[in-house]
């Protein structure tokens, strides 16, 4: 059974003049490692935000984690991790890395609940997994770009999501971090959590079968399984066509 099932969806921005996602269908199964490629402005970010309901779909139907997206958007967001593409934290943002990582779990904890032991454990584990132990007490605004990126990844790992969506998660990371985190995501997929990764850099892809989705102008132009080393050529090919 699919964990994400999009059926001819359309998505338009508030104030936008035409839909950005058009007539798009997609199905993702547990444990899949999905790479979403395509040129700039193809609609990749919009697709991810349509999947977790941050942007409302205007037509079509969508089921995520067994929930009807239109009705249970918030519940979906509690279960789906999402590392956003662009963020900026001013230097005086008054939150430490540890607090920010804990915030990943705030949605799923539910109202009026305080972090429990298991929450602290998940946070600790995520911080250790991503390797930012020595930053835990620092405030996020005083970190380097890559450190902030790692914090946001830890925030989503701590969430223990049923689906992990990543929008160019490696853009600020050094070699070591990139390769190391690719491994972690591969493991997550291996444990059944599908990964949806938007990226423009594919040199460090894990050696698994990859569900490759290529988008262009709001539509999917390629949707098939391939090997890691085929990803780049296929995308280049698809994008060259246009």
């Amino acid at each position, binding site marked *: 059974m699919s964990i994400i099932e999009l059926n001819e969806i359309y998505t338009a921005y508030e104030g936008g003049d035409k839909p950005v996602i058009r007539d798009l269908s997609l199905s993702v199964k547990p444990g899949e490692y999905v790479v979403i490629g395509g040129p700039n402005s193809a609609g990749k970010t919009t697709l991810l935000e349509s999947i977790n309901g941050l942007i409302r779909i205007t037509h079509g139907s969508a089921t995520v984690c067994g929930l009807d997206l239109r009705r249970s958007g918030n519940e979906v967001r509690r279960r789906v991790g999402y590392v956003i593409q662009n963020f900026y934290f001013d230097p005086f943002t008054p939150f430490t890395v540890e607090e920010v990582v804990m915030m990943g779990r705030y949605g799923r*904890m539910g109202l009026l609940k*305080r972090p429990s032991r298991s929450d602290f454990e998940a946070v600790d584990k995520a911080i250790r997994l991503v390797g930012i132990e020595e930053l835990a007490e620092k*405030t996020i605004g005083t970190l380097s770009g890559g450190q902030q990126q790692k914090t946001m990844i830890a925030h989503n790992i701590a969430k223990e999501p049923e689906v992990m969506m990543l929008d160019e998660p490696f853009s600020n990371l050094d070699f070591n971090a990139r390769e190391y985190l690719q491994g972690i995501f591969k493991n997550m997929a291996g444990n059944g959590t599908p990964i949806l990764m938007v990226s423009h850099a594919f040199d460090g892809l894990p050696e698994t079968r990859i569900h490759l989705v290529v988008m262009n102008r709001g539509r999917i132009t390629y949707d098939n399984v391939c090997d890691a080393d085929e990803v780049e050529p296929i995308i280049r090919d698809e994008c060259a066509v246009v």
Partner: protein
Amino acid sequence: MFGFLIENNVVCHAVEAMVFASIACGILGVIISRMSLSSLGFTMSHAAFAGAAIGMFLGIGSQMAAIFFSAFVAALIGPVSDKAKMAADATLGVLFAMSMAVAIFLVSYMQYMGRGLTATNLLFGNVISLYREDIYALAAVSALTVIFVLAFFKEISALMFNMKIAEASGVRVKLVYYILLFIVAISVSLSLNIVGGLLIFVLLVTPASIASQFCFNVRSMFVAAPMIALSVSALGVWAGFKFTLPIAPLVALLLTFVFAISVILSFKRRINYKKY
């Protein structure tokens, strides 16, 4: 509360009022300053004013009308900011101007129709004219404020961090934001009623600004701001009675002074010239 310590009940009630107001406003101030809502106090005080004018105009109780209209304005802040895609600051500005217009219009109308002048006395309390019941009410407002902030601490801090990331993590951002603005506005307007305008305005902005000079973390601000508010206002009350100086402006000036000192001493801008 301090009855056993301070025999003079005027002084005693003033001290108690300051304690409760400092705690509640100090805590709310941290939220307010992070979310650029510093005109909240002012807007709510004028909403109450407008409500009272409406009440008098319609011949219903102006106190009740003030509370209703304040609640109405408080309830508008969130949805209007959201629908109009504006910063809450701009919404507060618009609502402030509206409240003031309603108040001035009705007041001048009634004044010249020979129907009473202003209702300011009904709206603004006074730390030295408090019944024991006022203190209880203020204690209740403070306690509810603290409880609200504690109960929704997760959600409030997520909003203070980053709205989009909070929403993506499954926090009901809009709902919490609306409730937050509503509760903050209501607490402010109830405290205004008891303690008076100036004290509330200053306790909402200055202690949090002082705390932000030394605290880098929101948790420490939530502790430091009320403590600063508390100690400076305790000093102010004492000095006010001791030297017969007006309490509210004295506390405000003391806080401003502490703010000035702390900006000068702040670590925030300090550049470390060490080489290691």
